[in-house]
C-alpha cells in the first residue's frame, strides 16, 4: 500500500516536472541567437564623481538607507560592457579617450527603492542610468536611459546590510546587461564603425 502511494506521488512529481520545466528549457533553447560585439574601439568613462555616487532613501533617523550605486557600478559595469565591443578601455575622464572611435558615458538619473515592513518581504530597487555615446569628434550619436531592476528580501537587523549590497549589484548588472543589448542593436552605433559611403561618380 505504502509502495503504491509512493509510486503514485512519484509519477505526479515526474509529470509536473515534465509539464513545467521542459517547455521552459525548450523555449530557452529556441530563442537567444548569439549576439555579436560591435566592431569598435570604445572607451568607458567612469569618473571619480560617478564612482562616488551614493543615494539615500527614506527618512533620517527612522528608515533611511544608503545605496552605494557608484562604487558598485564602477566594480561591475566594465566587464559587462566589454562584451559589447571588440575593444574597450576604461578611463576616468572623457579627455583621456584619444584613440577610441566611441566614448561611452554613463550618468545616474535616479534610484528608486521600495521598503517593506517585514524581513522576508521582497523589495525592489530600480537604478536609472543614462548612457551617452559620442564619436571621435565629440558628437553625441546615441543616448538611452536604462532601468536596471532587482528584487531581494528586505532583510533583518543582521542581513540587511548584505541584502542592500546584493540588490545594488543585481540592479547595476541588470542595467549593464540591458545596455549591452541596446548597444549591439543600435544602428546609430553600428554606423560609427562603418566605412564612410562611397560618393557617386
Amino acid at each position, binding site marked *: 500500500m505504502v509502495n503504491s502511494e509512493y509510486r503514485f506521488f512519484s509519477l505526479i512529481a515526474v509529470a509536473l516536472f515534465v509539464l513545467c520545466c521542459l517547455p521552459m528549457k525548450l523555449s530557452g533553447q529556441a530563442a537567444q541567437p548569439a549576439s555579436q560585439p560591435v566592431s569598435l574601439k570604445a572607451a568607458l568613462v567612469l569618473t571619480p564623481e560617478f564612482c562616488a555616487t551614493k543615494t539615500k*532613501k*527614506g*527618512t533620517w533617523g*527612522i*528608515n533611511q538607507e544608503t545605496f552605494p550605486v557608484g562604487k558598485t557600478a564602477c566594480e561591475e559595469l566594465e566587464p559587462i560592457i566589454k562584451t559589447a565591443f571588440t575593444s574597450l578601455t576604461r578611463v576616468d575622464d572623457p579627455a583621456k579617450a584619444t584613440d577610441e572611435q566611441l566614448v561611452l558615458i554613463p550618468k545616474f*538619473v*535616479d534610484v*528608486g*527603492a*521600495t*521598503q*517593506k*515592513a*517585514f*524581513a522576508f*518581504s521582497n523589495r*525592489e530597487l*530600480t537604478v*536609472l542610468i*543614462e548612457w551617452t555615446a559620442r564619436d571621435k569628434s565629440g*558628437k*553625441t*550619436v*546615441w*543616448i*538611452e*536611459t536604462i*532601468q536596471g531592476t532587482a528584487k531581494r528580501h*528586505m*532583510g*533583518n*537587523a*543582521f542581513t*540587511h546590510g548584505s541584502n542592500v549590497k546584493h540588490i545594488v549589484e543585481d540592479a547595476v548588472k541588470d542595467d549593464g546587461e540591458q545596455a549591452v543589448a541596446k548597444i549591439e542593436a*543600435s*544602428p*546609430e552605433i553600428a554606423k560609427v564603425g562603418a566605412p564612410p559611403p562611397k560618393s557617386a561618380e
Partner: protein
Amino acid sequence: MRNRLIALSAGIATLIFPASISAGPKFTPYPEHKVSDCAVKADKGDISVGAQPVEDPKDQKAYFATEMTEKGYLPVYLVIENRSSADSYLFDKSNVAMADASAGAVSEARSKTGEKFAMFGVGGIFAMRAITSATAVQENLLKSEIQSKTLSPGVSVKGFLYIPIPKEGARGEIHVQIPVVNSRTSEIQVVNLTI
C-alpha cells in the same frame, strides 16, 4: 538558542523597519497612447509629439496612488514619434523646457547641443520628493517618467512629465518646448506644445 536569536532579530527588524512602512499601494497602468490619441498634438518635420494631461484627481489617484494637483504638480503623458524612414533623432529630457504665464523666475539652461532654452523645474527627482515620501509611490513616479532616448526610424518614446503648477486655483496655459537633434546632421527640431 537559535530560536531566541531569530526572535531577537525579528524584534529588532520590527523596530528598524516599522509597520508604518506601507505594504505597497496598487497602481493602475496608464494606457499607452499614440500621438493621434492625445488631446494636444504638434508636428515638426519628421517628429510628431502628443501630450495628454492627467487633470482628474481620481485618475491621478489610480495611476500614481496620490493626488498630485494638490501637491502642485500636473502629470502630463508625452509621446514623441520619429516618422522618418532614414534618420535618427536624439531626445534629451534635460533639454525639455516649460513656461507658464504665472512663472516668475525663469532660469536659462544650456543644452548639450549648445542651444539655449528657458526652463524651470522639469519635475523629475524634485517632484517625486515633493509629491510623496512613500517609497513605492516615488518608485512608480520614477519608472513612469519619460527618459532620454535615441529615436531610431519609426521609434517612439513615451512617459510622464511632472509639471509644477499652482496648488490652488485654475492653472494657466503651459508652454512646453521639446527639442530633438538629428543624429546625422545635428540639426535641431523644436516642437512647441500648449497644454
